[in-house]
Structure formats: structure tokens, C-alpha cells
């Protein structure tokens, strides 16, 4: 299911030519709307749920909904990036919450 952009939180990467979600999307699906300079997905059906944009967004403004087959609303999968670790919060359709956090960078 396509990314949903919180229009309040999105700041259009401060009006830059290419927002971070736009730059990272492997399918070139994200763009900044001309009038509001907020991000949006141009072709929701083409999204593969890779969640790159969710992780890249510095404002935490993007959320992807899980595909219906995996779990209908309110099931969620939310990544949160630290400086060395990444965490995943998995909320099932039965509201069960599972959390994973592991190191993904060594330097």
C-alpha cells in the first residue's frame, strides 16, 4: 500500500529542488506538489513498500500502510532510524506490538 504523507509534518525538505523521499525512491514515485511544496506519491499502485522514503524522511512525515494481504488496517510496520541502529515496530491487526532494534552500522 502506498506511502501516506502527513501534510502537516512534511516541510518539503525546506523547498529544495529534490526532497529526500524523491531522491531515494527506487521507483521514482515521490514528488513535491507544485502548489504546496509537500511530498506525495504520484502512482500509488506502483509502490512496492520498500519503506526507503519512510526511513529517509527527516520529519517522520511518511507512513506506509501494509498491504491488505498482510494485515488490514490498523496493522502497521514503522521503522525508526537512530545514528547506528534501526528499529522496527510491528503492530498486528490484533493490536499486538512487536519491537526489533539492531545495529546496522559499524564505524
Amino acid at each position, binding site marked *: 500500500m502506498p506511502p501516506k504523507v502527513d501534510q502537516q509534518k512534511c516541510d518539503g525538505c525546506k523547498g529544495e529542488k529534490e526532497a529526500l523521499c524523491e531522491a531515494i525512491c527506487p521507483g521514482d514515485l515521490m514528488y513535491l506538489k507544485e502548489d504546496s511544496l509537500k511530498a506525495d506519491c504520484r502512482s500509488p499502485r506502483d509502490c512496492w513498500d520498500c519503506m526507503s522514503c519512510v526511513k529517509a524522511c527527516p520529519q517522520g512525515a511518511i507512513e506506509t500502510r501494509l498491504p491488505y494481504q498482510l494485515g488490514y488496517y490498523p496493522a502497521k510496520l*514503522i521503522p525508526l532510524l537512530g545514528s547506528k*541502529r534501526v528499529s522496527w515496530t510491528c503492530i498486528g491487526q490484533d493490536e499486538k506490538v512487536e519491537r526489533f532494534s539492531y545495529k546496522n552500522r559499524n564505524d
Partner: protein
Amino acid sequence: MAKGKILVVGGGIAGLTAAEKLARAGVAVALAEKSPYLGGRVARLHRYYPRMCPPRCGLEVLIKSLSRFSHAEIHLITEVTGVQRSIPGLYTVTLQKKSTDLNQQAEELVIDAQGIIIAAGADLYNASLIKEYGYGRLPGVITSMEMESLFRPEGPTGGLPVHPVTGGPLRRVAFIQCVGSRNKNHLPYCSGYCCTVTLKQVQYLHQSLKDIRTWIFYQDIRTPGSKEEYYRHVREEYRPVFIRGLPSSVEFKADSNELLLKSEDTLSKKRVTGSFDLVVLATGMVPPALTHFYGIEKDTFGFFSGHTPCEPSELRRSGIWAAGCSQSPMDAGDSVKSALAAVTQCLVKLQQQPSVYPEINTKKCDRCGRCVKECAYGACIMGSDGYPAVDPGDCRSCGICQGGCPLLCINLPGYGGKKIEEIVDRALSESSPGPSILLFLCGNDTYPAWIKLVTQVNGRGLEGIIPCSVPCIGAVNAAWINEALISGLDGVMLAGCHPDQCHHAVGTSLAATRLENLKETLSRMRLEPERVCLTGITIDESAKLLEEIEKFRTLLEKLGPNPFK
């Protein structure tokens, strides 16, 4: 550091003072004045207080001295048409220089300026906007600036204090104070200099005319400091009539060629009417319109004021200083003082040792430009290679760019991500019974308050707190907070200055926005958003800091341990 001139915008008393002092210090200066003459408004005065000497004298000393230096350029009839920051540390300023020969085309000048002193002065409030005084409509209603020229040999009356329209003698003169000033429909502020100007003009009149009566309609006479002594002198020596109340109307009586003033004396609660030969309006000042300077903060009235009281002349664009009436309404003496302050700041910038400034990892940077947008000082700009670059001379080491970088590729040495990671790792390896809290402390206010607190309580009651000082609370990157939370620390507290007291102007408010965004994400993750909080602490509020910590700890105890633990 890049080399360039210092550009002084405005050739009034402030601009001339600044340019002359810099030239004497051996700095290459360029002075741009939009009118065809130097000296600005001071050149059109008859005398200036407190010594009552002619301003010509002071101005000529400055102009003579300035024109002696080969490294000082003076450009008249020249206006700034563009200011660009192209290389770190340099402004490329385009100027349009007109010629006194009307047949000639205006010439375009480009100056590489290492710094700019804005001494563009201020305009006088348009007195005709106050309809009831009839300025521009009634003969004999003049502004205090026009009153000055009545005493000057090159003025319209040849220096004779006579009626400027009829040429008749002056017997009764009224002064109206606060013309536009302290009136929310016109100028909400006090211009500060007009009371003393009126006192000075009362002195002019009484010294040159024997049978003169002067009246002053005022709200409050404001003569702070040593000017009070001058006020007392004028009051006792010349005995003008003070009426506390501003006139409600000025009418012209054609048969007797007199102006009729109606007012209320608010002290005696009586109506006052008087007829006068001349009415002088003491007008306030309005800020200059300088449209080519981008990103410079103005105060609520539109003047270019720096961070008072710490850095009054340094504006938030590094390398741009304000002096004279562009800063706030002021008299000649204060203009000179503010010009000297700007010169000092400018020389400090030119001579200072390089400070700690952020390093940018261009391998990781994807040129999003957030650092350029968020830098409060304009010190971080997109360099010619397309990557952000910071000029060490411009940077004030606040680390706000580091806090905003989504890719963590900006590092302020000594305060960067490495240090935070070490602190977090160390905290995780130690175990304490209560909640573990990562506490970010702003280096300006909160860290000193914390140090004082630690010595006061001797560490008791602060178990489980992991302190971490940052130059500004805006230097805290959201990824660090995430890191702490997903590693299993129970809470993160950001203690910064109060938003309106932030030394780097936008640090606390940026941190607040970042935290609000994070809190929303946390609540979606079913992680209590209360685990992160921001608080404002001033340097003397150690007790409040302790209180806030205790409150936060009680809250965390109620919430239980971090589910990521």
C-alpha cells in the same frame, strides 16, 4: 580567509564614522551613499547638543580624514542593487552608481565585501499623515528638521529666524511633540531624540530673539541620562510653557495670519487654546526600506537590531552589522557610539582566530540544502562544488546544521555524533535501578546551571541521569534521540534556553519542531511520546532544572521501562 573590502552603506554621521575608523585601522573600505552629498541628516542641522557646536566641524574632520586614505573609496549617488553570498566569507555586492551628468548612463559596480556595515539611516515620519496638524496644507506648520534650516545661513531665510512663508517676525512658537510617535495608529514606539531636539530649538529661538514666547505640547518629556540636565537648564533659563497634552486641531486664521491650536491640558484638566506664528512638529523616525538584504532579522518595528544586550550591532547574517538610525531611532551622539560598536565587531571578525566549525562529509551528503536553510547566520552556503560549505569566520559554532542534517554528515568537532554514541553506549553498559535519562544541556545556559546543581546536591538525586552538553539545543539531531530510545534508554530530555532567549535565535524553536514531529511518530509506534521532552532553563534556574528532572523521572517511573530495553 577570503579577502575583501568592508562596505559601508550610508554616508551619514554613522557611516562616515565607521568608514573613517576602519580606514585608519588599515582596512580597505568602500562607502556608498545614495544622495549626492555626505553627512546625511546631520549635515542639515544647525547645531547639535550637548555642546551646541556646528555639525559641519565634526563632519569635515571625518570627510577630510577619510579622503586621505588611498584604500578608502567614496561612491556618491550610489545605491545597493543586490547582495549575494557566493564564496564563504564574501558578499558580492552590486551597486548602481549614477552620474551627476544626466546624459550619462548609470554605472554598475561590483564589490567583493568581507563585511557590510548598514548605516543607511532612517526616514522621518511623514507628518502630513496626521491630518489634524495640517502639515503641507497650512502655512507656518513645519517639521523640526525644517526648523533647523531656519537658522542656517544657507537656509530659505538666510539664517534669519523669521516666518518661513511671510517673512514676518516670530513672536509665539508652538512645538508639538510625539508627531506620529507613541501612537498605535502611526508609530507605536518612542523615537527618543525629539524631546531634546525641541529643547535645543527652544534655546535657538530664545538666544536669537528677545521677545519670543515658546510653548511645548507634549505627552511626557523624555530626556534620559545627562540630557535631564539640559532639560532643566532650558526649562529654567528660557521658561517655555509646557502643556501636557497633544493638540486636537490646528487651524489657520487668514485675517491675522496666525495658527490656532486647540488642546487639553491633562494636568489641570482644562481646555487650552492659543494662537501662534509658527508650529513645529517634532517627527519620529521610521526604519529604512532596504530590500536587497535577504534574511536579516528586524525588530517588531522594522529596525535592524541585533541580539540585545549581548551583540547589539551584529546581525544574524555574519559579517553584516548595523549602525546609526538603521538600528533604532537615535541622535547624533548615539549614532557615533553605535558606529564605533559596529567597527569593533567588524575588526574582531577580521582579526579573530578560527573557531570550531562543522565539518561536512561530502561523501555522504546528498545536497538537500537543509543546513543552508536552517543556519541562523547564513554561514553555511552552497559552495561552487554544489556541496554546503562553512566559512570559519562566519560560523558561530552553534551546531544547528548538525542537528538538522537528515544524513548525519555534518559533525561539529567535540560535539558530534561520535561523542553521543559513546555516551549512550556507556550508559547502556551501566545499570541503575531507576529510569535512565539522557539529558541534553545547552552550553549557554543550562550546562552551567547543571554544573551548579551537581555541586549543590553532590550528585544525590541525579542517579541514572546521563548529561551531555551541546553548544545549542538546536545541535541535537533527532537521530540521536531515536538512537537513545531504540537502544533502551527510558527517556530523553532536552534542556535549552527559553525560546525567546536562545543565543542562536532559532535553536530552541527548531528543537521544539523536531520533537513535535518525533512525538507524533512515537505515538504511532505505540511508544509513549512523553518519553521525550523539551524544557527551557535559564542560567540561574538550577532549582527549576532539578524540579523538571524529578518531574520527568516520576513520569517515566509511571510509564515503566522502555519496551525496547
